[in-house]
């Protein structure tokens, strides 16, 4: 019974955690679809969490803090796109180096302002429910629902609006899009801002679960890239499936096995997926 409960909790949590990871990663997918290998994506997630922490600490309102973090990081994203990336947009190696540089900038700004010790944002709800003898926090379910809503909204935005069409056109063939009169530069700036804002939302929403630390961005960058590569670069559906796959693999295998072995198995499965589908599950 206990084992069944652990597997059920592992499975449920795998989906929930996968959706939270998808929320954090989806912004990277958008940015990568513009051929911008932004390795500082995790730092946008971290900066979002830090700004959210300060805003919530000052104002005392979780949701207002979330909005402040989202808009502030969107502005930072616009600044990065216009001020750093626009001038080197045709050179991926320079973009990689520049975004690596941004990692250090963001980390040290956070170290100076936030400090080196981890902190936590209080969850806006603390209720839980019982399943197979295990408690499970309602907040996680709530965050997972937000992820679903955001992902659905993003899908509708990209595939059912003119602006979404422009984004897709600009990322598929930039010259052609310009020739058709699409304001490609503005599209790229807004898309980058949107990706940054999504990262910050992920940062704030996950902070009551995993705590905030100035160095947390790098680990998330690595995980986000794994998810994107498994799912297929540029694919929203791939990002969602990749994130849930990772969440499930860890959730269920950790319930059954020693966690270290579970981690090895989940990585082996991911390698097998890549061997079978070298361009990812849903590459374009």
């Amino acid at each position: 019974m206990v084992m069944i409960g652990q597997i059920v909790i592992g499975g449920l949590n795998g989906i929930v955690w996968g959706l939270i990871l998808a929320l954090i990663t989806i912004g990277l997918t958008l940015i990568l679809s513009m051929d911008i290998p932004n390795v500082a994506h995790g730092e946008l997630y971290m900066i979002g969490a830090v700004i959210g922490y300060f805003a919530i600490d000052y104002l005392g309102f979780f949701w207002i803090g979330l909005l402040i973090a989202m808009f502030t990081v969107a502005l930072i994203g616009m600044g990065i796109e216009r001020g750093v990336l626009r001038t080197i947009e045709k050179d991926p190696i320079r973009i990689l180096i520049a975004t690596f540089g941004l990692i250090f900038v963001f980390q040290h700004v956070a170290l100076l302002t936030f400090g080196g010790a981890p902190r936590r944002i209080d969850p806006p709800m603390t209720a839980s429910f019982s399943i197979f003898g295990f408690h499970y926090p309602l907040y996680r379910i709530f965050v997972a629902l937000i992820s679903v809503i955001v992902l659905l909204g993003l899908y509708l935005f990209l595939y059912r609006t003119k602006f979404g069409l422009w984004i897709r056109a600009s990322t598929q063939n930039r010259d052609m899009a310009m020739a058709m009169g699409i304001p490609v530069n503005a599209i790229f700036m807004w898309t980058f801002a949107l990706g940054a804002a999504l990262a910050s939302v992920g940062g704030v929403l996950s902070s009551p679960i995993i705590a905030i630390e100035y160095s947390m961005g790098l680990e998330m960058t690595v995980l986000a890239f794994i998810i994107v590569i498994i799912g297929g670069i540029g694919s929203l559906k791939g990002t969602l499936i990749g994130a849930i796959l990772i969440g499930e693999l860890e959730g269920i295998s950790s319930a059954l096995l020693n966690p270290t072995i579970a981690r090895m198995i989940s990585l082996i499965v991911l390698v097998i997926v890549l061997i079978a589908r070298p361009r990812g599950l849903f590459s374009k």
Partner: protein
Amino acid sequence: MRGQWDITRRDFLKGVAVGSSILVGSSLLGCAEKKPEETPTATPTKEEKPSGKPIRIGGQFEMTGLLATYGYWYDKAVKAAINKVNSEGGIAGRPVEYVGPEDTQTKADVGAEKMKKLVLEDNVDFVLGSVHSGICIASAPIAEQFNTLYFPTGMSHSITASKGNRHVFRLITEVRLQVEAAGDWVLENIGKKWAIAYLDYAWGQSHDKWFTKKVEEHGGEVAAHIPIPLDAKDLVPYVSKIPDNVEAVYYATLGSKTIGFLNTYRDLGKEAELFSVICANDGIDTEPLKDIIEGQWMLEYMPRRLEGLDTPYNREFREACGVDPEGREIGNPKNVIVGSHYWAHYETVFLLKKAIEESGWESKDDNMALIETLEDMRVKEGPGFPQGPAYMRKEDHQAFVRTWMSRVENGKLVVKKEIPLEDSIYPPEIDYTKM
């Protein structure tokens, strides 16, 4: 989706791999005198200004990376100690110069390079070392090779056992000592049926190993050993493995993993008592975590709050480091001290002063005499030694100090019991004097 400049998947992965390897690196990360009964002197009056060739003390600290909080406070403590020593006439009449801090970035390879830099380029006489056990282990052979005394603060047991040498002295506690100090008390007072959750690397594994032995000695049971991968973010898969029928959980986590662990523990409705060594929570502000940390037991190596050790020496030490009675930085109250760690480097400066003046040390040529003086040294609580009495064991160069069992009450660490240093002594595993 491909743009005008085509970045191939292979180019992209190559770039990410190179960059990631640069950044991730190997990150991550767990007394003084032969005459034992010497009475401490009162705070000395100002003496003559020190003169002559400065004694150079290097700092190899984590100023950035996962353990940056430690470096911040170590730096403050060393500066405070050296200011005090210099204002009181220096060491053997010579001024003391602080070289550093050299930032290890919390990476073993960088830490070892910084050790070499301090010794070979900056020509320091002594190195006050990292809290990162991997860095300490990598630096110990360098200390021996270049005849430089090294004072690490990493907690891995092996630093003063198989991985140490005669040039390495540790004034701070370590995992086995902590288990010896706390083990009997927690097993007699908290419970006999435990689960152990630990970060899955040397430090956490040591806690699992030594506490399991202690539980077995007491006829208790460890119902679950739960390793947590270092890069785990969501801890539900691990915390859910804690059986409901255990009386208590011993957890050995660090930094954000501690908050994640405590959050998840609460979220999953776990109710067994919690115990940890303070390393899990040092530098972390416990007051905002009241809802998840209240009531748990912790072993402190020096009380965070002044109330737990209100002596004139501790008051002087805290004032010099800019710490308020609650263990917060004056002027920046969100910054909480690593109170169980930073005292060690403060005291090491005074330990060196005592040993140098007793041994007649003038340069590294006299290091053997200095080593022999440090071996088996004892100090009593007093100026320069606010933490209390200490005994530096001759065989393995591990110091034994008193510790405190504290409980979180209303979000604050409240000392419940002082554990004398004698309770933490275990047989030495090695004898450097015979090697």
